[in-house]
């Protein structure tokens, strides 16, 4: 068994909001990305891209390979299919991993994280400590990632540290 809990902040991510134009479905967007997209709230990983469903026809698309031209590149590829907005600076993304990660996250969200209800590939948009969050589960460790608006990262970190201390 690994560490009980590892918390890290992801850096250097390229993040973009992709919103389908009218009449364009998830499959068409996924075909361009080369990554099957969830039809509802969910997280999918395809090569160096991952996508989180955050609303009807709306995904947060992320890459680890640089933030510079990511959104601009997507804008070109999605011309006529989707509206793309650069959000690389907008979110601070925290990774929580280890067998205490579920306990920790459950203290924050009023969403059932039992493996039968929330498994790798699940995602949700919710609140933690009055802070809006988007979070998703990546593996059975379990590993979760939590995205919060960057301006709120300090307050989120306060909650995280306060609760982690009680584990």
């Amino acid at each position, binding site marked *: 068994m690994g560490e009980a809990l590892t918390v890290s902040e992801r850096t250097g991510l390229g993040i973009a909001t992709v919103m*389908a134009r009218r009449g364009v479905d998830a499959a068409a967007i996924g075909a361009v990305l080369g990554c099957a997209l969830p039809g509802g709230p969910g997280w999918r990983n395809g090569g160096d891209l991952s996508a989180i469903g955050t609303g009807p026809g709306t995904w947060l698309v992320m890459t680890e390979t640089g933030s510079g031209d990511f959104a601009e590149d997507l804008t070109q590829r999605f011309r006529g299919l989707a509206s793309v907005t650069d959000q690389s600076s907008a979110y601070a993304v925290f990774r929580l991993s280890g067998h205490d990660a579920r306990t920790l996250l*459950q203290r924050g969200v009023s969403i059932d994280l039992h493996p039968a209800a929330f498994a790798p590939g699940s995602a949700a948009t919710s609140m933690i400590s009055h802070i809006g969050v988007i979070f998703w589960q990546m593996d059975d460790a379990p590993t979760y990632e939590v995205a919060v608006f960057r301006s709120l990262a300090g307050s989120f970190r*306060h909650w995280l540290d*306060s609760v982690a201390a009680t584990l």
Partner: protein
Amino acid sequence: MSRLPHGGLIDRSRPLNFRFDGETFAGFEGDTLASALLANDVKLVGRSFKYHRPRGILTAGSEEPNALVTLRSGARAEPNTRATMVQLFEGLEAQSQNRWPNLKLDLMAVNQLAGPMFAAGFYYKTFMWPRPFWEKVYEPVIRRAAGLGELSGLPDPDTYDHDHAFCDLLVIGAGPAGLSAALTVGRAGLRVILAEDDWELGGRLLADRQQVDGLAGEIWAERARQELSSLPNVKVLTRTAVFGIYDGREYAAIERLADHLPSPAEGQPRQRLWKIVAKRAILATGAIERPIVFGGNDRPGVMQAGAVRTYVNRFAAMPGRRAVLFTSSDSGWQTALDLQAVGIEVAVVVDPRSSAPTVASDVQRAGAQVFLDAHVRKASGVPVSKVEIMRSDGRVVKLSADLVAISGGWNPAIGLGSNLGHRPKWCDERGCFLLDQTPPGLTAAGAAAGRFTLAEALADGAAKAVEAASDLGTTCTAPDFAVSEESDAGAAYWSAPAPRGKAFVDFQNDVTDKDVALAAREGFVSIEHMKRYTTLGMATDQGKSGQLNGHALLAQQIGKSIAETGTILSRAPYQPVAIGALAGHQRGENFRPVRQTASHDWAAENGAAFANVGQWKRAQWYARQGETHWRESVDREVTMTRSGVGICDVSTLGKIDVQGPDAGVLLDRLYINTFSTLNVGKARYGVMLREDGMVMDDGTVTHFAEDSFYVTTTTANAAPVMQHIDFARQVLWPDLDVQATSVTEQWATWSVAGPKSRELLQAAFPDLDLSNDSFPFMAAAKFVWQGNPARIFRVSFSGELAFEVSVPALKGQDLLAHLLASGEPFDAIPYGTEALGVMRIEKGHPAGNELNGQTTAADLGLARMMSKKKDYIGRVMAARPGLVDEARPRLVGLRPLDASEVLRAGAHLLPLGAAPVAVNDQGYVTSAAWSPTLGHSIALALLSHGAERHGETVLVHDPVRGGDIEAAVCDPVFLDPEGERMRG
């Protein structure tokens, strides 16, 4: 010492020392404070709320009304703590309450002599007149005389945690019914949470000498605990009180993590607030024993019969040496047997019924007298020493006893079940109120459902669990239990016929039978009215022990049955909850989330004072060394910006990307002016209305590409405008092909303003051509800065030549450093929101104080922006007569006639010579500032017919802060009305 030599579930190998009112006592691990006090012969524990009556320990549970103490000392002192709920720990410290100078000699007990003054409704009747006396005399006197414990007044040193849980079945209470339910469903693999207030599972199995499956009750309970703990699908929460039921099958509970320790472990929370979402729930909270109303029924030494069994059997503590049993239920007779079994003398069993249960012969054989058709009239002594009994033949027997155990039957503990408004219903068959209808998913089981015998409770818990599982599509089997026989026969018996002396129905709020009678006489015949008039059931214990006796007495008074009068609804919290537990980690500076811009740390290091703007921290001004007053800093920032160049963080403004083929169409419908015709590479000021025609927000819209617009909003309205846009495109016009998303957090934006702003930016971005020809007023462009996407806009809030530059927030700090470095030759300075405010007032720009939800576009002088060629949200309602009335207050400027006078926001405007009364009010000052540019105070105001009154003098009336000022009405644009500076 009153500790029995043997028995009990206490650990005699682990003695504990504790202090009560400064005196040191000894108890054992496994004691409560109440049991340890009884074992030390301490019977007088507190004084009552109104009459300062001496009080002892009535119960052994969470319903305790009397034994309230202040637990711990200093900042951790917690008043009104129920001694029956405190698990004893080494070094525990407790103080009695509401007594002066001490518990045994309480001078305030004279309140009893003034009894009539404190009767029901005395507040309403006695202290009506003379009116001024209420605040100055009556209230302070009453507050000193009445009350319970006091708060420490110090900050709470503990921390509190929150958690969430989800389950198929929540079992509330781990007595026989709860354990049987949890075992039944737990074995079937469903997700179960079992919440128990006590630190041990078992409920009455710990207190009664009963057997289950051939095992002593406590042993069976321990086996059940072990089995439940071994099931991965079952979570057992001890020391956890479920205190409320809410919509959506949500249950709130408090887990007392560290209340049984001298102090929480370093860094660990004291308590945890749980929000539990349960598909089904079983209310297995048991029953609370009914007291009986008779004179002196509140004397220390008068105790619930069931509590007596608990103290004797579980804690091996003797509540007395010579007992009188006063019971109308067979379970009370069991108390006599249990007392006799440990050698405590039972002098008499008094039963108002005419026939005795079968156990009576055993009780008599052990030496007790039995009086049937009889009642206790009065108990006296502190603690109790004399009891007066009225026998069936009319003879009064007086005898000495130091314990009066009472039982008027049992009330199912169903308070939680009425949290959502389901009123309990009287059941004649079982002689108690039961839940008739319940919150969705909840069922009562066991004693809480009127199944009082152990056999019934175990079977009912299992049966209700099988039902719940079946509802969820799981089949499971109810286990069988072999249980010893007992009788739950009894008569609902509320009060002795003619109590002598004070007889209480609410011990904690000092409500007597006479108060109920008075309420009835005065017409308070509804249960809920009588409750409020007499305060019956309104203390911290919510009347759990005696209030039903009061309800029954009211029924008697008005000649109805208790089934007809009914009972009250119980509201959450069912148990007292510390406010800190509700706050959790959100306290102090973390009371609410804080939003910080990219330059926050830099600003903090450079003398910034921060203002809270919603959740944002915004730099108000940057104090330089030697500046001792904020005005010095602000005046300098304004002057240096207007004469040179200043840089301001405007990242908090709302920013929204609006994209798609129909983006222009949507914006035309949102704003009063037109955007679909805006050229690419241009920005335009816009105003949007609410549906009701009032101004909602203003900002700029920039056209970046054929299908891409960039909208800015005020800081305060960022989220409402985003919601407004989403509502418009998702609900009003789903046919439009338009997408929108907030980018407030993506971009850090700096306003660079002042006559030297162009020079600064040309130095910072030499590749850009910012000349007036290439980049005129309201131009906008994307560019790349150090490999990052960047944007530049020529917009001005200050009225100066000004630009805004945006880069991704992660680069915001770098850009600020670059701008400041590039600005060094020009003496560039950072300026804060105060200077920003001064400059926008000088320029007559409306902001939050003017966009106050009560102004129209015309009020703000923006009528000509309202397009007549298209429809837009709010257009129709903006044409209502009241909104186009020419007499409406309109935006004007004000300058004091005497330049040394100071205008203040909030002051009202009157015609000269008019009396300062509301009918003469013509408007008010919305924003005011000292203008360092003009050298006098200036203000924006909303003034009736304002646009036509420039040049007129009005009185600026400020009754709150004093001082009336005469001011000239003028154009709201104080500075550069032609706009030459910003267009230059």
